[in-house]
């Protein structure tokens, strides 16, 4: 796609510029890679080795003890079962929350772009504000509401919160995508007697795969990485992994086990990193979908 630079005769200056260009790009790449490399190296050393070596020295032997400790026996707050229970909590929150918010977003986007009614555009604009408000402004009323509903400190409560504040984004994604579907298509199907849901199932959903993938990835990473709602609305047993990781890192005073901290941090990051590695294209599309109108 990039036909910007016109091919020219390579002079000495051009060659020097190329070398400088690559140098800058590689140095910056090192800056982005270093924290992860250091985390990985540190997680593979024992405490003694961490003390004697430097950040970037290689571990003498590959030692996965800290990983198994982080997973199943490190102390977070008052229990010492590692971060695995919280890792599972995160999945229990993420999976239903992603499914429900994506489904709602698809239906909303379908209505807003193809079944406009009086006020639907105004509502869409009002909903968009939900993408940008600082969540601090709704935290306390939401805490009270969850209490009244009897779902404070439960997984259900967290799913509810993530659905409520995720729908603005999912609706935005689907609306932008469906905007390009010609209204005539729906009109014709309607003349043939197809109803609201028939058109959705038979015409709209079959062409929606790309935007569903983008939305699911976006929601998965957003909800997995959430900390604010997790720390404000979860009980000890229902904490997501981000909260447990923060507890683990901040409470183990005394003999600080940096290798365990780093292993736990990598474990907490693995699911979204995996998504990024295997579906990076869609991840980027999700990031930019909210930012640049497609």
């Amino acid at each position: 796609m990039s036909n910007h630079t016109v091919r020219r005769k390579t002079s000495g200056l051009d060659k020097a510029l190329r070398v400088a260009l690559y140098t800058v790009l590689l140095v910056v790449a090192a800056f982005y890679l270093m924290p992860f490399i250091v985390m990985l190296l540190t997680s593979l050393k024992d405490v003694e080795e961490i003390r004697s070596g430097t950040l970037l020295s290689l571990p003498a032997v590959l030692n996965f003890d800290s990983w198994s400790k982080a997973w199943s026996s490190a102390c977070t707050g008052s229990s010492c079962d590692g971060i695995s229970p919280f890792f599972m909590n995160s999945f229990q929150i993420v999976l239903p929350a992603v499914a429900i918010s994506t489904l709602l977003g698809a239906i909303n986007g379908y209505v807003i772009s193809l079944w406009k009614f009086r006020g639907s555009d105004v509502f869409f604009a009002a909903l968009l504000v939900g993408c940008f408000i600082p969540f601090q402004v709704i935290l306390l009323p939401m805490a009270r509401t969850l209490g009244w509903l009897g779902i404070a400190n439960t997984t259900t409560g967290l799913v509810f919160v993530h659905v409520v504040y995720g729908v603005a984004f999912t609706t935005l994604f689907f609306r932008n995508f469906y905007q390009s579907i010609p209204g005539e298509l729906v009109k014709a199907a309607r003349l043939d007697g197809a109803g609201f849901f028939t058109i959705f199932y038979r015409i709209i959903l079959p062409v929606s795969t790309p935007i569903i993938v983008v939305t699911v990835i976006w929601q998965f990473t957003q909800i997995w990485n959430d900390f604010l709602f997790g720390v404000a609305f979860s009980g000890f047993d229902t904490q997501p992994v981000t909260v447990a990781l923060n507890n683990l890192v901040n409470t183990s005073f005394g003999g600080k086990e940096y290798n365990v901290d780093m292993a736990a941090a990598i474990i907490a990051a693995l699911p979204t990193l995996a998504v990024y590695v295997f579906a990076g294209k869609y991840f980027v599309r999700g990031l930019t979908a909210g930012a640049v109108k497609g």
Partner: protein
Amino acid sequence: MNTKAAHSGSGPTQSGRPARLSLADWMPKIVMAPTVIMTVVCIYGYMIWTAVLSFTGSRMLPSYNFVGLDQYERLFNNDRWMVALGNLGVFGGLFILICLFLGVTLAIFLDQKIRAEGAIRTIYLYPMAISFIVTGTAWKWLLNPTNGLEKMMIDFGFEDFKFDWLINPDMVVYCLVIAAVWQASGFVMALFLAGLRGVDGDLIKAAHLDGASTFTTYRRVILPSLKPVFFSALVILSHIAIKSFDLVAALTNGGPGYSSDLPANFMYAHTFTRSQIGLGSASAMVMLGCVLAILIPYLYSELRGERHE
């Protein structure tokens, strides 16, 4: 009949409709109803609720004894809040400027037919997939004066090397900047790269035919056409800066003392752990004001642009 018809709202509901309203006619409204209720209650309703609380003397529990602007007065006389607000200015300003600068520069560099562009792009962007809690944990380790970069430099032979920003109240806010830039600058790069690839190729060819150098073409033709991307990035970055909470929680926990607090952390602490609900609500409203001050002009220009399409 042209393709524009789809955009001008000629949806099925606006075609000649039969006089009788059936269930099918109500269906669009019925399926939207849950979202409408959630939005009205949980976004606007709660916003108003918090606004109301900010005018009350609520402490541990919400109460409705109105005290006017007292909480706002207390807020701006509160040392910790002023530190948090000042930190937001420094942190937000540097974070946004550095991210924009790095983002534009890296996008232009990557746009020069770079070998292995895909791999380099992947490296630049991966931090965005990670939680701020993980980012904070990683940088806390790197910036730790006794074990991290400082020790590494000393071991390399720079014996006087000192890097204690993380425990220095005057410098700790810059640690937040480093970690946040690491996390978000790749994303800005991706935005600008997408923008660059979308610039009209004919425009660029025309500039080259006129004899413009690559540098001039970028400066005079390409970058000016990226104004919307620039604006979007600015809005998103300021939003990230204002709501930043988790990075502080993981990297510094507000310390030393409260020298690295941001408004979001102030709000959480006062609302949930210090039983100062009224004060916490007032701080949340100030945060909302900051976001709206940036958001309203943005939405206004976006919507106006749409009408002119």
